[in-house]
């Protein structure tokens, strides 16, 4: 499998998350994206112990642990699908296509350090970042927002692995650990939000205030 194909598949998973209302499908798609990106270091870097550990770590975290945590949160919150997002699915898809255009245009203007292993790395990374942001701001359910955060992080990871080859192994693993802690905490928070308020709609949390007479 070559790098271009892998990156296109990543872009397609982004579009799928933007266009799907089923949270389970979104979680699975994000997991597939995580596994695909876990394979990316193996393709762009020479095969060493470090890249192997990094690839194995990302695949295990993003492909197995995160979906498991999120599915658990989903089961406890008893929600199946995103109802009434702020931005509809068709519009999200169209915005996604526009975001691809913007990403391609911006990455042409960006002066990139060194030679990228594939001309698609910067566009796809930027597109993932934009798509993640779009999911975060356009959806109501807390689970969707965690997914948006994950996609955003995947974009940054794509940028790092694909373009900045000299990043130290420690930094990559540190980022991976941070994301893990983030998703872990968010999973628990979703559970508690759901237990207190019987829903996980984040827009209603903004009306929270101290209890008054």
């Amino acid at each position, binding site marked *: 499998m070559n790098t271009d*194909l892998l990156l296109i598949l990543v872009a397609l998973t982004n579009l799928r998350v933007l*266009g799907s209302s089923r949270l389970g499908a979104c979680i699975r798609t994000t997991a597939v994206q995580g596994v695909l990106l876990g394979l990316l270091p193996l393709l762009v870097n020479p095969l060493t112990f470090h890249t192997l550990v990094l690839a194995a770590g990302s695949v295990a975290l993003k492909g197995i642990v995160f979906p498991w945590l999120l599915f658990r949160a989903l089961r406890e919150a008893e929600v199946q699908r995103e109802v009434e997002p702020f931005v509809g699915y068709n519009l999200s*898809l169209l915005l996604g296509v526009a975001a691809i255009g913007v990403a*391609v245009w911006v990455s042409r203007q960006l002066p990139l350090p060194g030679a990228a292993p594939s*001309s698609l790395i910067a566009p796809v990374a930027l597109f993932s970042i934009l798509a993640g942001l779009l999911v975060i701001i356009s959806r109501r359910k807390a689970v969707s927002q965690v997914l948006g955060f994950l996609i955003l992080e995947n974009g940054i990871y794509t940028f790092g692995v694909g373009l900045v080859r000299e990043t130290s192994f420690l930094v990559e693993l540190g980022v991976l650990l941070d994301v893990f802690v983030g998703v872990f905490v968010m999973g628990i928070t979703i559970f508690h939000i759901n237990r207190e308020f019987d829903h996980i709609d984040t827009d209603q949390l903004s009306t929270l205030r101290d209890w008054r007479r």
Partner: protein
Amino acid sequence: MNALIPPLLALVLSPLLLGVINRTKARFAGRRGQPVLQLYFDLAKLLRKGAVYSRTTTWVFRAGPMVGLAAALTAILLVPLGALPAPLAFGGDLVLFAYLLGLMRFFTVLAALDTGSSFEGMGASREVLFSALAEPALLLGLAALARRADSLSLSGIMAAVSPVAWGTGGVVLALVTAALMVVLLAENARIPVDDPNTHLELTMIHEVMVLDHSGPDLAMILYGAALKLWVMSALLAGLIVPLRSGKVWLDAAGTLGGLLIVAVLIGIVESSMARLRLLRVPQLLVAAGALAALALILVLR
């Protein structure tokens, strides 16, 4: 002389394509199914019958099937069969192709509205909505192919598809193929969008618009629909069978094999999927449009 092969094959073999689809569906359901040549028998039967016209209809209703068939007959002159170029090929014929299909649809819709039946009006409104969403996907997909091939003619586009092209730009071709497949299913009223078997159900789209046509008019509509299915399948077959040997009969046979694959594929999709809810259909078409747009962006990059 070779240029006449694609339209002649289309004229003769297009009803067979529907027979193959129906046979595939029957096999999946464990039935023996109708004869593969059933549509030919139907057409022969309908042509021998007289037509009945409602008093509320005008000349528009009678013109509908004729204009539809004429548009389809013109469209088959533009569509190449794999490596075999079409008799009519000029820069920009892909736009003409898209709008011949549009003209055909427009007159079907007009004829449906002309009957004054609210039921047909409903079908017409749905048909127009879905085709408005399918058209960007078709045109963006064709635009991506045209840019890849550096040619604005369908024949030039198909000539540029080759095993080598699939090796270097396979992603773009695969994206366009997927988008065109969805457009084909939507435009020809196949299952995820419309169910060709339901004649009396409120969710149907295309079938409802032709309820008032009878006899030779219905034959023209059925034959026109078969030709439309043929031209769109021929485009797909040209993409998925990149056989460009230069030998006329080998190329023709390869693309006919591709058409058979497309027909069986449609049969499999119809047997394994349920029709989408009406509200979900636009989402499918927008997704197809997104795939085509992604292909175009990749080509333009």
